[in-house]
């Protein structure tokens, strides 16, 4: 209880605070520090409370650090808690001060009261000061063996905190092994649960560097551990149950009877009052039965009722979370909810985020039997006061129409929308009618009659206007006024702000010209002139293209502009099935809410110690979670693939040939039925064959010159990269470098079928890559997942490249992460690596 000598305190590094209050508190605290008068704790409490409240509102009270520590010598637990809170807040910014607190925290860790032991240990581990870790090991070790479960539970989390401050200290003290022991032996379930969280995190971070650890991690998913946890699951708190269930979802049972055992054991979890447990159980059921089609379907039936109840009871946020998951399920098995569509009808005062999801659900579950009811309901929303929802509803009707074969009734409804004479309804409906006509040209007669009555003046939104103009061009034969409406639109060219609309206007007037030449000729001339003078590059280019096309040959021009069209049978899905599968693998996480796999929204640069968290549980999920590339990069990578495939050989020869890296696709313009929206691409590719373009009366030479940069210019080719065929690197250096260097490139490549066939053992690829001066330092895995670590060195200097390469032969994909001493050389190296990989398996 004796406070440290006053003299020492007075030299504490407390700056004079500008704020009178703080200085006041400081002196009061100092007076109380040594006092043992009765009631002193009460006065301390008042002061501590004041300090904490200053801290909370953002006043810097770090200057009273010394005094707070002095006053902490007390048996009063609330005082202690406040003091711990204070210390935890300021320790990180004042590591020197933090050292002062170690002493009393360590002492409290040995207190007779388990509450104090626990709280002190928690604060000690929360200091987050790297040079104090040595003081943590002792108390943590004792805490893990404490006879009170409260202390153990905190100690387990403390180990994880220590790991994040200093991984090596944590591992060297053998804490993971102690956690494993507690996981399997502790009586208290919260201790077990915390062990599970901590070990999963530690092992997944540690896993990529050591074989031993990855074996340990597999033990978590072994039968005895899983069964041990399953048998105790009822004793766990609801959150801990979620944790266990998440783990069980990754377990791979040996046979189907085991699968049924697990499901029978967990059946009652679907009746748990906490929705989180229900969702976690759902995930287990779905994952376990993935390979058993029949049972998988039955699972959908079984989980339906609990999930629907969760949607209709509880908070809107709960409905939102559960609906996101239902939406994912319904895209995988549309039939399951087709008779329950009424559950997705919107209530009047639901928040619009719930309504939006419900509309998506209604779209997804619509089929032959329920379309009529669903569309009727959606039409009620279209007249709703909530405009965004009304719009969404109309779009939903459109989506359903595009899914269905029997669209008779829906078309009528859409046409009714057009007659409602509300601007936003008309706008949405126009866009839909356009899409509908592309799929069902047979409805043109009915639709055009109605569309013809719409005054273009009432349509202002660019998308809707573009749709209307498209219809005017496409059906100018059927619509009496088409040329004249177009004419008036062209007259107002200057007032049209949207480039999209102007592009459509150009195309429409061209189409109309070939169908009704005499009436359109004048407008066509006006449109082309306006287009050529347009400041927007695409509009200008398209006008120029049409102009030359007309000069070149009228009939060819007609073939380009008005080719016989095929009805679109299926509109492209925006998401690949692979991405959807990945989201499904991450069921019950943010991925489902965002409708994106986790690698698209978790960024590595902030992860700090997580940088190596490549794997969790299994290869295929784990590697993705560490992937930094956002969607844009991914697309870019794909593009590159396309480009490279034509020019690969040149690149490997020396990467010198500039023009061949991008050779303009030489397709026959007249024979390709290109949808109008892609016309701009054609316009761009045209100038690259200038020999064919007839000279026009305009001064177009400079225009030609302007046209070219619009084409995706090939990247300036990098200097040739030569690799040292006899490079050497010892494993320790590799590991060190791998830890230090940031990932400079992360990509996914496809592997040729020949390559997949040749990759029966890892060795095959090793030998092949060695031939390309890329050496392997470690490899492992079994079909279909292989993992390799490669390295290579530049021939002339000792700059090293490190590569992690994960190959999945079933999807024929390789995921590559490159780290390099010389970041700038990553790109050429990546090309070399990729070309080496692509030659694998070739004779």
């Amino acid at each position: 209880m004796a406070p440290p000598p006053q003299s020492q305190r007075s030299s504490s590094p407390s700056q004079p605070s500008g704020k009178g209050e703080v200085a006041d508190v400081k002196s009061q605290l100092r007076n109380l520090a040594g006092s043992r008068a009765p009631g002193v704790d009460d006065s301390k409490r008042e002061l501590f409370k004041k300090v904490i409240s200053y801290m909370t509102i953002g006043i810097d009270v770090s200057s009273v650090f010394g005094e707070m520590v002095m006053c902490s010598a007390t048996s009063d637990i609330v005082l202690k808690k406040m003091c711990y809170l204070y210390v935890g807040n300021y320790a990180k910014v004042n590591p020197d001060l933090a050292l002062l607190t170690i002493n009393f925290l360590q002492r409290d860790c040995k207190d007779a009261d388990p509450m104090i032991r626990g709280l002190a240990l928690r604060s000690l581990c929360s200091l987050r000061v790297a040079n104090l870790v040595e003081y943590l090991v002792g108390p943590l070790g004792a805490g893990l063996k404490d006879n009170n479960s409260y202390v153990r539970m905190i100690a387990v989390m403390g180990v994880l905190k220590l790991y994040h401050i200093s991984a090596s200290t944590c591992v060297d003290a053998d804490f993971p092994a102690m956690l494993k022991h507690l996981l399997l032996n502790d009586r208290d379930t919260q201790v077990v649960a915390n062990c599970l969280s901590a070990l999963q995190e530690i092992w997944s971070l540690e896993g990529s560097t050591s074989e031993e650890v990855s074996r340990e991690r597999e033990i978590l998913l072994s039968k005895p551990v899983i069964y041990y946890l399953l048998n105790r699951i009822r004793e766990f708190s609801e959150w801990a149950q979620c944790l266990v269930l998440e783990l069980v979802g990754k377990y791979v049972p040996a046979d189907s009877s085991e699968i049924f055992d697990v499901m029978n054991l967990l059946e009652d979890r679907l009746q748990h009052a906490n929705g989180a447990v229900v969702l976690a159980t759902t995930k287990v059921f779905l994952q376990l039965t993935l390979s058993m089609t029949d049972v998988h379907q039955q699972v959908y039936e079984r989980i339906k009722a609990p999930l629907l109840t969760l949607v209709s009871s509880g908070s809107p946020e709960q409905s939102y979370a559960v609906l996101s998951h239902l939406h994912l399920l319904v895209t995988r098995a549309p039939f399951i909810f087709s008779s329950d569509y009424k559950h997705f009808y919107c209530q009047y005062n639901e928040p619009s985020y719930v309504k939006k999801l419900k509309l998506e659900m209604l779209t997804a579950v619509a089929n032959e039997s329920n379309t009529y009811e669903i569309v009727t309901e959606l039409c009620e929303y279209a007249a709703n006061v909530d405009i965004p929802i009304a719009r969404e509803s109309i779009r939903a009707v459109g989506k359903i129409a595009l899914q269905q074969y029997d669209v008779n009734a829906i078309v009528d409804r859409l046409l009714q929308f057009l007659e409602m004479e509300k601007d936003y309804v008309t706008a949405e409906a126009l866009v839909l009618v356009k899409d509908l006509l592309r799929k069902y040209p047979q409805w043109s007669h009915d639709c055009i009659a109605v569309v013809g009555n719409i005054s273009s003046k009432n349509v202002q939104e660019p998308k809707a206007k573009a749709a209307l103009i498209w219809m005017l061009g496409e059906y100018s034969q059927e619509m009496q006024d088409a040329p004249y409406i177009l004419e008036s639109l062209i007259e107002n060219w200057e007032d049209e702000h949207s480039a999209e609309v102007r592009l459509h206007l150009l195309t429409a007037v061209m189409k109309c010209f070939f169908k009704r030449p005499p009436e359109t000729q004048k407008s066509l001339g006006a449109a082309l002139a306006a287009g050529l003078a347009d400041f927007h590059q695409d509009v200008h280019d398209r006008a120029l293209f049409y102009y030359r096309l007309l000069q070149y040959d009228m009939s060819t021009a007609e073939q380009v502009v008005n080719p016989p069209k095929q009805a679109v049978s299926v509109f492209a899905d925006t998401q690949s099935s692979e991405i959807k599968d990945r989201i499904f693998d991450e069921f019950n996480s943010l991925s489902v809410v965002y409708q994106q796999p986790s690698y698209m929204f978790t960024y590595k640069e902030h992860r700090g110690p997580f940088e190596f968290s490549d794997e969790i549980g299994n290869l295929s999920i784990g590697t993705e979670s560490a992937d930094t590339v956002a969607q844009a990069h991914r697309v870019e990578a794909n593009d590159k693939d396309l480009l490279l495939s034509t020019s690969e050989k040149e690149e490997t020869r020396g990467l010198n040939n500039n023009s061949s890296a991008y050779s303009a696709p030489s397709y026959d313009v007249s024979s390709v039925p290109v949808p109008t929206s892609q016309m701009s691409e054609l316009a761009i590719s045209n100038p690259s064959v200038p020999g064919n373009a007839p000279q026009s009366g305009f001064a177009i030479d400079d225009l030609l010159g302007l046209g070219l940069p619009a084409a995706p210019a090939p990247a300036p080719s990098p200097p040739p990269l030569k690799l040292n065929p006899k490079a050497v690197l010892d494993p320790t250096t590799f590991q060190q470098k791998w830890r230090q260097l940031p990932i400079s490139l992360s990509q996914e490549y496809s592997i040729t079928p020949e390559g997949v066939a040749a990759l029966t053992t890892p060795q095959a690829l090793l030998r092949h890559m060695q031939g390309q001066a890329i050496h392997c330092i470690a490899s492992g895995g079994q079909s279909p997942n292989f993992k390799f670590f490669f390295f290579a060195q530049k021939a002339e200097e000792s700059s090293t490249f490190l590569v992690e390469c994960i190959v999945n032969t079933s999807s024929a994909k390789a995921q590559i992460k490159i780290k390099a001493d010389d970041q700038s050389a990553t790109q050429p190296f990546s090309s070399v690596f990729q070309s080496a990989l692509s030659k694998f398996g070739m004779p």
Partner: protein
Amino acid sequence: MAGAVSALFLLDIKGRVLIWRDYRGDVSAVQAERFFTKLIEKEVDPESHDPVVHDNGVSYLFIQHNNVYLMTASRQNCNAASLLFFLHRIVDVFKHYFEELEEESLRDNFVVVYELLDEMMDFGYPQYTEAKILSEFIKTDAYRMEVTQRPPMAVTNAVSWRSEGIRYKKNEVFLDVVESVNILVNSNGQIIRSDVVGALKMRTYLSGMPECKLGLNDRVLLEAQGRATKGKAIDLEDIKFHQCVRLARFENDRTISFVPPDGAFDLMTYRLSTQVKPLIWVEAQIERHSKSRIEILVKARSQFKERSTATNVEIEVPVLSDATNPEVRTSLGSAAYAPESDALIWKIRSFPGGKEYMLRAEFRLPSITAEEATPERKAPIRVKFEIPYFTVSGIQVRYLKIIEKSGYQALPWVRYITMAGEYELRLI
């Protein structure tokens, strides 16, 4: 990996941080506050924003309660649903501690709030969230805390939701069977959706470690016991129990047996999707006599047995937002115009079964209307009511046995009530 939360924020209605707890040190309060303030500023109606948002690598999940936002921030791919449930649980805990969760109560009790945040979550992983258990070692009134602190004993207990050593002079249990009826009627008068959500709400004031057993007229159970179903047996769909109920036991022989927590809790919830006849039917006719005069005629009919009576009936009829000078007459109850919600609210204290009542209202409308008139409201008629001593499903408590080793006699009190849930008729 079930991701961990980086930090938990309590924000005021303008999105400013009241209190926050940093668990993992990888998000900044300033950034979170700035982001969230912007988010709620740009939204006309903040409640319409998705409760999950992503900004610059950080996922924010939030809920609103009174004038407080509760928000988590995380850099990992965490379990979204579970966190939203967790936030609601935090609200429950705060309500238990401070009666009501609002800005004021947080400001007044920030020390306790910090303590609670520390115990409910550690390093981003949820820990104890049972208010009853927490209140054993975190006391609200720090000054009067003379009793020595105990670490949560429940941890070592097999029964984590109940502590030992509870004493009551009079041992009583109150069981309320509450059913709420959700109904949606479309403009043609067809019922397009109806279901019943039921809950058995319990309040227990029992000493020691009582063992309870509840018997319902559950068809599966009665048939399993080979009992001829005397009277009505019911089929319950999708039953969910409080964690105290031994689920395995229920799976085996449909017995509901449990050691109850102390105080109020929901023992069980269930849902029935059988079509129910609307208990109160409302029809409305709108007549526009001239450009500036409108008349609304509302008929309300009770469609349940005469021996039951609905109480606190409230019928909300939407009216045009620019209506003025209401003149209302009713055959029962009172009606008032509520301009703030653009509705006419008709209140009937007591509405016997099998009866019909009328309301007639006349409004004046401005004779000049704007060219750019906002689209007409299409709000439904909404009805609220309670019918005591009656359940739609016909569920009945056959017995509630309470056995404690000290052998005291406990009194069980059972009540039934049916209420309107989401009760909407789109008839105008």
